[in-house]
């Protein structure tokens, strides 16, 4: 599985988060984070996003997080979805259901 294109998931509704993942060649994870609850939850949102990316094996990417108060489970799901869309799993239907997505 490899990031081939820009993958986006989520909405700008309240209690949701929009995640955009853009493949890059090097430079690690370049994260930009905006959130309506940044003062109280910015640290946790960042940790959740980075943790999910690590689990998915993403080492280099430009990641834009636009959060409107999403819970951790939502953030995790949106990161996974954005990543697999970036891997074009939605084109060839190769979502790795069971196990990897959790």
């Amino acid at each position: 599985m490899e990031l081939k294109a820009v993958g986006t998931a989520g909405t700008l509704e309240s209690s949701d988060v929009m995640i955009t993942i853009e493949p890059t060649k090097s430079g690690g994870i370049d994260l930009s984070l905006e959130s309506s609850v940044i003062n109280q939850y910015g640290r946790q949102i960042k940790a959740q996003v980075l943790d999910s990316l690590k689990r998915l094996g993403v080492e280099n990417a430009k990641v834009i997080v636009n959060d409107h108060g999403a819970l951790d489970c939502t953030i995790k799901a949106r990161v996974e979805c954005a990543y697999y869309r970036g891997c074009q799993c939605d084109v060839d239907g190769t979502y790795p259901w069971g196990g990897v997505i959790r």
Partner: protein
Amino acid sequence: MKNAVGREIPEELLNSGLRNGKGYEVYQGKGYRDGKYIKKQGPTTKIYQKPSESKILPSIREAVIKSGLKDGMTVSFHHHFRDGDYIVNMVMKEIVDLGIKDITIAASSLGSAHDPIADYIEQGIVTGIQTSGIRGRMGDVVSHGKLKTPAILRSHGGRVRAVEEGDVHIDVAFIGAPTCDEYGNARALGGKSDCGVLSYAVPDSEYADKVVVITDTLVPYPNFPASIHGINVDYVVKVDEIGNPKKIASAAARMTQNPRDLMMAENVAKIMTSTPWFKDGFSFQTGAGGPSLAVNRFLEPLMVERGIKMAWAIGGITGPICELQRKGLVGKIIDVQDFDVAAIEDIRTNPNHYEMTASEYANPANKGAFVNKLDFVVLAALEVDIDFNVNVITGSDGVLRGAPGGHPDTAEGAKCCIIVTPLTRGRMATICEKVVTVTTPGDCVDVVVTDYGLSVNPKRQDIIECLDKAGIKHVPIKELQEKAYSMVGKPDDLQWKDKVVAILEARDGTILDVVREIKPYEM
């Protein structure tokens, strides 16, 4: 110095002279000043002995000049026009255009209609703000330390006390009025922009040195029964529009259909019926928020079932309580503010719907305000902590965006104060370990109702007994807070700078809490 709600109040604030030169005390607990005395500080007013026909001046500018307003003075406004208010901005523009500076605005409340004032704060022209509500850009610039002196935030009752006691001296009061005659008798009905009552402007008319009434509808003398009496008014100005009627009164406070709100409202009603105060002749106030307002709907069948009636309802009045009265279930409505067209229409025509002054409503320093005889109050909150302290002023980002209003007054006065709020709002835990800012002290809060259960203040063993007897389940508030954190995570503490940007006064004039300048978030 730590106060009775455990908040650290900086020593230097206590003798900073912010209380019109007098020293501050920190909050000592509920009812601290009961039985003590105050000396009311009357205004210096001009004698009008020679007969004259009219007090009308051609413009606001003329009125500002004639009032003798100078650098360093304090002007006041009321908030009955809510988001539709034009008066504050019109008057402040003239004051600024005349080059007058170092102005303190002492308003009963300010709102998002007053964004232009933020510019005057940034320009250093407005150097003091005393209000109940602070929102929008004004809240933002004050939270970022742009106001020269800390804003002083008071409850509606606390403001009247402060005015009477001379904690704030109003040099010139500018009172917008839907109708006025040429001698200054003003009413809230009969004009183009009716607001129902002028309760919050009454202390200003009685305690300001100079009083200017601004109206868009001149009516023949005498405009009686008057809310603001001409004997207290120096000048009258007619303008084209005092406000936007559509924003002054919302069409109708919409009854919530949200099942979560309805469930909480129903539980509030059940709690009320389990207490000894739910009997014929009880008294009641509820806020205009979704679940609070919905309580009216659930009370009705319970009152009918028991064959009891409410003797009186007070507060910010909305259509649903007027409707309850039309059904014969409420004796009198005593009104300090109107939130919707239905309430304004009702006070126009209903002989049992009366206007009261802000002092009669909630002043802790008079000889007994309505809130002192209140049985139940149902209120909302942004946050409640495990000590039952309530925050209704600062958001989760630490920025000022609310108003204590009558919350602390009714909470202290009522025999049973019920807070109704969802456990979480988005990712915000409403029930938390420590509220950002204490606006109503926990010793005044009795029951907290959420969508995940309810909790009673352990200080109120009498209410706990009532609920147990009625089989209404309740849990320690700590459990609610833990439940909330388990869903949204434990919030990080907000980051503050040292500078105090606002003082939260308890209704008795002691310091309940302070708000500091917010630090920009860094990861």
